[in-house]
């Protein structure tokens, strides 16, 4: 049953900010949190004394048991509510969902959502690869030498087997993301690539090649989620969170009930139902793209394409800026950059910019309705958001 809440009561995103992504010399997890926060608060037109809630994620470079307390202390914020969320790549969207629930319950008026890490300069690509590989089951997966690309490659093998996805389809995902990143001044990689270059890049975990894999970056992103009545002072308070949903089916890929249907389907269905809209209504999508196969599987599992049709559709330009579903207009994790929870939060920041009409050369004309999705683990934890221009 649909439960469409009155728009006037829905939480607003009043501020959005990010840093450039890439190798940021001299950055630390906390300095990155601060840079993104300052940008988001300035965008919202408030100072840190107005922040009465804070939701953070986690840092691999400087792990801490209480990151939201550490960040609040560093920023000089004394919130009435503080929490840290750990859902891997779903964290960015889940933090926004958590903040919106705090707003809707009347608990807070301005919640700061912020994440950042200097995974590239602070721990090296080898260190990040090794740390992330340990998300596998310590007894029943990790001893066999898997990596995160290998976990997703298992999904790719089955998905290709059942639905005829080809390496060419996957390469077109990477090429499209790079084309979008070329239009974003803060993106880590902006030089256009070709399908041939993707297919000539070195194998990481068959069938995934280097250019099928997301980047490792330094970077941070932040948004301010505000009560509707508190949003009126913001410079550009036009974005409302009108639908939210999560879906969780497993943590370890060897325990996934299916390698072709995932919790993203449940998350999207819940978010669309709450918003009272359908996938076909969406003007712009910002969807977690840790690997090329991730985006393709999610687009089909969430109903944007029928099974087996995303690959040919993407090859024909369907997710490009002038396609029927412009997707990851900032270049996504594959080309804009990926820095843990901040990576997923950049999808939210980009959606806000699109809905405000401030995405410059990447602007989707008259974007009114955006869909944002994060996936954590190995297509394990999912969170979807529907954002609307008010």
């Amino acid at each position, binding site marked *: 049953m649909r439960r469409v809440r009155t728009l006037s009561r829905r939480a607003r995103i009043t501020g959005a900010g990010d840093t450039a992504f890439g190798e940021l010399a001299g950055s630390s997890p906390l300095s990155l949190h601060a840079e993104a926060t300052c940008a988001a608060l300035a965008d919202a037109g408030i100072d840190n004394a107005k922040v009465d809630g804070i939701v953070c994620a986690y840092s691999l470079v400087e792990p801490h048991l209480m990151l939201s307390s550490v960040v609040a202390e560093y920023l000089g914020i004394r919130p009435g509510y503080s929490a840290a969320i750990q859902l891997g790549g779903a964290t960015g969207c889940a933090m926004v969902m958590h903040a919106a629930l705090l707003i809707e319950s009347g608990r807070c008026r301005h919640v700061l959502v912020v994440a950042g890490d200097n995974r590239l300069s602070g721990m090296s690509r080898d260190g990040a*690869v*090794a740390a992330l*590989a*340990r998300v596998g*089951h*310590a*007894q*029943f*997966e*990790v*001893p*066999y*030498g*898997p*990596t995160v*690309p*290998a976990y997703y*490659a*298992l*999904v*790719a*093998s*089955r998905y290709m*087997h059942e639905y005829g996805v080809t390496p060419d389809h996957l390469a077109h995902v990477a090429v499209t993301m790079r084309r979008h990143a070329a239009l974003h001044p803060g993106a880590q990689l902006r030089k256009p690539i070709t399908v041939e270059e993707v297919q000539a890049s*070195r*194998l*990481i*975990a*068959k*069938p*995934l090649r280097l250019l099928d894999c997301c980047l490792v970056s330094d970077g941070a992103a932040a948004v301010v989620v505000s009560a509707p009545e508190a949003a009126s002072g913001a410079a550009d308070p036009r974005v409302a969170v009108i639908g939210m949903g999560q879906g969780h089916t497993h943590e370890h*890929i*060897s*325990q996934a009930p299916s*390698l072709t249907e995932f919790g993203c389907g449940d998350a999207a269905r819940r978010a669309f139902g709450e918003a009272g809209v359908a996938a076909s209504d969406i003007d712009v999508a910002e969807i977690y793209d840790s690997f090329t196969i991730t985006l393709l599987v999610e687009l089909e599992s969430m109903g944007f394409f029928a099974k087996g049709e995303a690959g040919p559709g993407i090859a024909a330009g369907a997710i490009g800026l002038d396609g029927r579903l412009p997707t990851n207009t900032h270049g996504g994790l594959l080309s804009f950059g990926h820095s843990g929870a901040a990576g997923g939060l950049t999808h939210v920041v980009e959606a806000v910019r699109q809905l405000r009409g401030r995405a410059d050369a990447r602007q989707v004309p008259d974007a009114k309705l955006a869909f944002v999705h994060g996936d954590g683990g190995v297509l394990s934890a999912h969170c979807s958001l529907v954002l609307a221009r008010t």
Partner: protein
Amino acid sequence: MSGTEKPLPPMTAETRPFWDGCRAGELRYQYCRACDRVQFYPRSICARCGRSALEWRRSNGTGTVYAFTVVYRPPSAAFAADVPYAIALVDLDEGFRMMTNVIDCDPEAVAIGDRVRVVFERRADTVLPHFTPVHPHTPKERG
């Protein structure tokens, strides 16, 4: 973890019978008498019905490759000498799925649907289950 030694499974009281089985050359899994369901990995309760009416059974050790990859970029230096190596999700004939390496074959020849059987490999003082093709492919290098 230093990165130079391959990781060993940090076994617990509830998984020890599985690892003891590997040492004895048996692939063991759990069966729930309350809801007639098999379960892997081992747990203290049945993940379907929540009861603890679990018993250990011995698998015949044969199964079918459900999904696979070949790793070229290893997670750490400990696996660098092994690349390329195959990782698969194998569906055992008794109805449970496990991750494993497919060894003693050309990793690039592994395919979905291949029949495989368990082989036990020693790592330090632990024994790990791996799988190998029932009908070995001719390695590509030999032509």
